[in-house]
């Protein structure tokens, strides 16, 4: 990079004032490199523009509420008092439930598909799992409202209240809408991400690894343990991708979470996420501060996503001890 840059820079300057001799030095390769650079800068520009616009929209709320916006629990468009804490908590809790459920299932399925299943069965199952990823989120939402919610209301939630009701997490009334149903649908939505990425990573590992483990007398389970260990950073990468989707998912969550800014310890109680409050209120936000507060929620969502990603990357780096040679290291 450092060696190539000056030549390309001169070539770029030359292309603007071409003399007969120098113009020949602007080769097809240089044009290609320039095109790639423009492409990557365009993506960067889009991100910066996004941040700038969001900041500009949020400015009145940033001025009016300052850091108290993050700890405030009121969301009152009439009195123009806004605090984002219930939404931040709602986003993190639903995403945590989703990962808690999706990661064991997703990795389990990936191991089965790459290590155990006969190739033809594996192909069919992985096709089905990837099909899950292409279902629009509004369809998940509708399925959640008309199938999952009644099921939870009549069977699961009464059971939870009866047997685990001593925990504050499972107190309340079984309405079928709330944090838990939203987290469950999110889990189903992110399973394909975990499974397909993990499966690709496991498949990329050399067969010699499995062979060596088995040759040393490892059982099949132990051999799978060895491959999982080798694939760990890549699998963590898959989890991060899944988390990214869970944090930002809007439609299905909005339909299932019950949409209230009251915080509760109970997973059966309704809640709201940052994405859901924006989806709900943006079109009809008439007040200047109301609109700005919604922009600020978007900004917070942006920052939370950034922090979560950074932390996850840090985990990956510690997990691999800085190794970069392993398949799928993020």
């Amino acid at each position, binding site marked *: 990079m450092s060696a190539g840059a000056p030549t390309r820079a001169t070539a770029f300057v030359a292309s603007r004032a071409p003399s007969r001799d120098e113009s020949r030095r602007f080769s097809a390769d240089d044009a290609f490199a320039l095109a790639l650079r423009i492409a990557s800068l365009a993506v960067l520009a889009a991100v910066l523009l996004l941040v700038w616009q969001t900041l500009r929209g949020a400015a009145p709320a940033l001025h009016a509420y300052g850091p108290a916006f993050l700890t405030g629990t009121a969301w009152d468009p009439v009195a123009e008092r806004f605090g984002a804490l219930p939404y931040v908590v709602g986003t993190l809790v639903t995403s945590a439930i989703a990962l808690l459920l999706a990661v064991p299932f997703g990795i389990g399925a990936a191991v089965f598909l790459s290590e155990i299943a006969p190739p033809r069965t594996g192909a069919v199952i992985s096709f089905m799992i990837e099909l899950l990823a292409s279902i629009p989120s509004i369809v998940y939402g509708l399925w959640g409202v008309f199938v999952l919610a009644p099921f939870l209301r009549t069977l699961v939630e009464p059971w939870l209240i009866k047997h685990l009701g001593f925990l504050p997490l499972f107190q309340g009334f079984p309405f079928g809408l709330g944090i838990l149903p939203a987290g469950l649908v999110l889990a189903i939505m992110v399973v394909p991400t975990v499974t397909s990425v993990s499966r690709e990573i496991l498949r990329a590992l050399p067969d010699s690894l499995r062979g060596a483990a088995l040759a040393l007398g490892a059982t099949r389970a132990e051999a799978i343990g060895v491959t999982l260990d080798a694939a760990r950073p890549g699998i963590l990468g898959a989890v991060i991708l899944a988390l990214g989707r869970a944090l930002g998912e809007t439609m299905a969550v909005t339909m299932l979470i019950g*949409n209230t800014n009251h915080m509760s310890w109970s997973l059966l109680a309704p809640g709201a996420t940052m994405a859901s409050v924006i989806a709900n209120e943006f079109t009809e936000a008439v007040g200047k501060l109301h609109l700005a507060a919604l922009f600020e929620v978007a900004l917070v969502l942006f920052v939370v996503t950034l922090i979560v990603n950074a932390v996850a990357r840090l985990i990956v780096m510690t997990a691999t001890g800085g190794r970069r040679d392993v398949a799928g290291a993020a």
Partner: protein
Amino acid sequence: MNSRIRPALAAIALVAAAGAVLCTGAPPAHAQQLTGAGATFPYPIYSKWFDVYHEKTSVAINYQSIGSGAGIQQVKSGTVDFGASDAAISDAALKDMPRRVVHIPTVGGAVVLAYNLPGFDGRIQLTPELVAGIYLGDITTWNDKRIVAANPGVTMPAAPILAVHRSDGSGTTNIFTLYLSSVSSRWKDVAGAATSVSWPSGVGGKGNDGVAGVVKQTPGAIGYVELAYAKQNQLPMAFVRNKAGKYVEPSAASVTAAMTGVAAQLAKDVRTPIVNSPAADAWPISGLTFLIVYQDAKDAARGLALARFLDWAIHDGQQYASALEYAQLPEAIVKVNEGTLKLLTAGGKKLMATANP
């Protein structure tokens, strides 16, 4: 220029001018296309009107139902000829407008309380205090003695109440919370009235369909939706006691009655809420929906076309309302609108004086 192709070019230029205001020569005498944006609640009746009006006059009206708030924003930035809003613009927001705007109420609508009580096929009567109590979270079961007292001779089920509200900002919520604020001072203190408020209890569903979905799926749920929506989906609706003390069934006619009951106040300020109207047959949770127009049009041709359409909508257009479950304007409100239309100008020149429909 070849004289034979000139008429064709002129025709193309005329279409382009009407479509994109790219006109450079003399303006066309009649604008053939108008644009509007705003409320979703009146969209069914508006699209009916635009269809009929287009057939009648060949004036095409392009309307985007993007929500009242966004519609007002578009009026403010001047990207549309008219806006549509279910909530009247507040005095403070009116001052923010670049020029003076007027409100034209077009039709009325009812917000009804739909409920889900399996195995119950009686009629449910609610007093204003009960409606407020349910949404405040004070009344939590259907056999609460206050509900039983309002429904003599009916055995109320022992189901818990789930109060369902709109989670998205909406004109429906505005009408409903205006009503709650007018009948309950506690509600006024706790939540107030707006297109979205801080709900003391219950769960939120997105859109009429979201609320109706939760109500249908949850035994014991009660939620507020638009009359047309509840009718189309055959949801049972509660009777509510109005200011005159009568339990009223929600209908388009009872909304028209509500408008008549506050006609005098509407004549002074057309933005006056029509909730809790004193008329004997009034449905108390009623609202008007408005078209928002600049009093002085920038473009005379477009201003004239718009004024003529408004004049048609408040007269001939009214006949299409009841089939779509909207409430017709009573004669008194039509008169108020006629007065408003007379104020419309373009470049300071009266529009309706030159209008000759």
